[in-house]
């Protein structure tokens, strides 16, 4: 296990050098410096992108790496958001770390349960089952007005971190603390996923995606690994949901509706489900599109997203824009595609 961990740190065939790691360090430095040079609204956007990045990277573990198309992930994302919001409202717990931990634990358990049920089916029936199960979660939350406020939603106040920051103004909270917190969480998630997906576990998931029968034939308990994949893929969106709730200070049941699952899927796929970091670009694309100042694009974001999805599925399949870019680069360099 430790050997493959070390191996994952070595230069990989694609870049052929350590330049990739230099690039990552550069991005991190820029990331840390950003709040000092840009406006607060851009910091908000970046934090949002980081949050959705965690969401889609988590989803990609299940879809891109294991090959399971879940149409019910809104349940985990919305679930994490609601766990944070409801915990703050009913128990008065203010600690950011504790709240996020609860969100992760809660969605992990939810993932275990839904996973155990959903994995009894395969292919399109698996997708439809995840859709049905997530809709049940949606209806329960939506209709439990007394508990969750139903369609009114819940407002979320700023949690404290190690006892501090909670009393800050929202904008100061964001710029001087929350952005950095999210950035660090994002970096931690990326690093852990990178190692995990390069490890034998990650390779097993890929093997399942490529040829399930063969993988089973060599003795891998396929169903169990699928279940593990679902659990990881539930916990990360749960974390993202919690982060989202705090960032937006307001959540509503729409986070649990099946169209949210579709959005998650779009971001992951369009960014590049077959790649590691692609989904983050998909998230960025989606968010920037929705926030774009230009009237036309802002009003017709659905048209653009829909068209982008349709065209990219037909032409790039699961590679998305990031995968497509990589493919283009390979072709230019004359490598075998």
């Amino acid at each position, binding site marked *: 296990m430790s050997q493959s961990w070390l191996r994952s740190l070595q230069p990989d065939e694609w870049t052929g050098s350590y330049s990739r790691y230099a690039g990552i360090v550069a991005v991190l430095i820029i990331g840390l410096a950003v709040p000092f040079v840009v406006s607060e609204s851009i910091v908000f956007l970046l934090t949002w992108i980081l949050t959705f990045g965690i969401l889609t990277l988590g989803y990609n573990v299940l879809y891109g790496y294991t090959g399971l*198309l879940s*149409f019910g992930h809104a349940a985990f994302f919305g679930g994490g958001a609601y766990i944070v919001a409801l915990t703050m409202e009913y128990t008065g717990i203010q600690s950011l770390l504790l709240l996020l931990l609860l969100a992760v634990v809660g969605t992990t358990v939810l993932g275990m349960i839904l996973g155990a*049920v959903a994995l*009894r*089916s395969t*292919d*399109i*029936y698996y*997708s*439809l*089952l995840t*859709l*049905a*199960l997530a*809709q*049940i979660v949606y*209806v*329960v939350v939506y*209709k439990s007005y007394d508990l969750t406020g139903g369609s009114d939603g819940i407002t979320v106040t700023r949690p404290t971190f190690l006892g501090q920051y909670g009393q800050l103004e929202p904008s100061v909270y964001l710029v001087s603390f929350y952005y950095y917190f999210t950035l660090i969480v994002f970096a931690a998630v990326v690093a852990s996923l990178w190692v995990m997906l390069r490890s034998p576990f990650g390779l097993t998931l890929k093997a399942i995606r490529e040829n399930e029968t063969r993988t089973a034939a060599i003795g891998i308990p396929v169903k169990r690994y699928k279940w593990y994949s679902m659990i990881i893929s539930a916990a990360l969106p749960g974390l993202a949901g919690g982060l989202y709730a705090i960032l937006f200070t307001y959540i509503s049941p729409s986070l649990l509706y*099946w*169209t949210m699952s*579709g959005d998650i*899927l*779009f971001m992951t*796929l369009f960014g590049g489900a077959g790649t590691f970091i692609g989904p983050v670009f998909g998230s960025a694309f989606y968010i920037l599109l929705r926030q774009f100042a230009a009237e036309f694009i802002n009003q*017709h974001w*659905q*048209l653009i*997203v*829909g*068209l*982008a*999805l*349709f065209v990219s*599925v*037909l032409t790039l*399949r699961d590679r998305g824009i990031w995968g497509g870019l990589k493919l283009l680069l390979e072709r230019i360099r004359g490598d075998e595609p």
Partner: protein
Amino acid sequence: MVAINQFVILLINGLFYATILYLVGVGITLIYGVLNLVNLAHAVFLAFGAYLSATLINAVAPSSPVVVFLLLLVGSVGIMVAIGAVLERTVFRFLYDIDEDYQILATFGLILIAADILNTVWGGTPVSIDQSLNPSIILGSIDILGNQYPLFNLFAIVLFGVTAAIPFLLLNYTRAGKISLAVSEDEEMAELLGINITRIRMLIFGLAVGLAALGGALLVVTSSASTELATRYIILAFVVVVIGGLGSIKGAIVAAVLVGIIRSFGLAYFPTYEAAIVYVVMAAVILISPKGLKEVLPG
């Protein structure tokens, strides 16, 4: 227990829901069965049918009730059938050869595009047929065991019976129908035998779109057309199709009745969580018998 007349009204209401669900669901199942396409977006045609019917009737504002009905049942449906055939050749044909997963994803993209079009053309406020022109008002109500019930709803249920029979008659007794069955069995072979696959595809797709549009037309008479109609019925229609079994028309009929009645009685007795019941049933069906009811139905 429940008063008999209340029970009967709930039952009829359930059948009315079932009519709409069937009209959308049978289209999905036909497209899956014959064209091998998972069309997640199919219910948008219901929404278009609804909007188109209301707009058409309001715009033409005919004085004769007969013309109102013609516009509703033939006018808007006819337009949608034509649009459907065109869309099949221009958009949907590219989806036949790709994996089912990708079909789901691509058609999800189409849902977004359609939602945008609906929003742009008709805006955010719901559209309904003018009171003076509404077919339901025209037909009035009828007394059922002491309750006043809209005659139009009963008319719709009769249409359910008619449209339920149509696919059977078409598929089993017409030449085009039998060819469609052949295509759904073995497309390559059918093509080798000289059958014009393209024409069959346009036919089936147009039929499916027309039926969904009819569902929208019937629906807009009793309520109104809104953009969330599409997203709501997309998922309900899939519940019906899954329960009935992908590709089974009989299954779609039975499942539509089942879901319609569950909704009707559910709304009356378990209003809070009624919406969840259908999803539970859908999940149960997938877990117990994924191929749906078609496994247990005769024929």
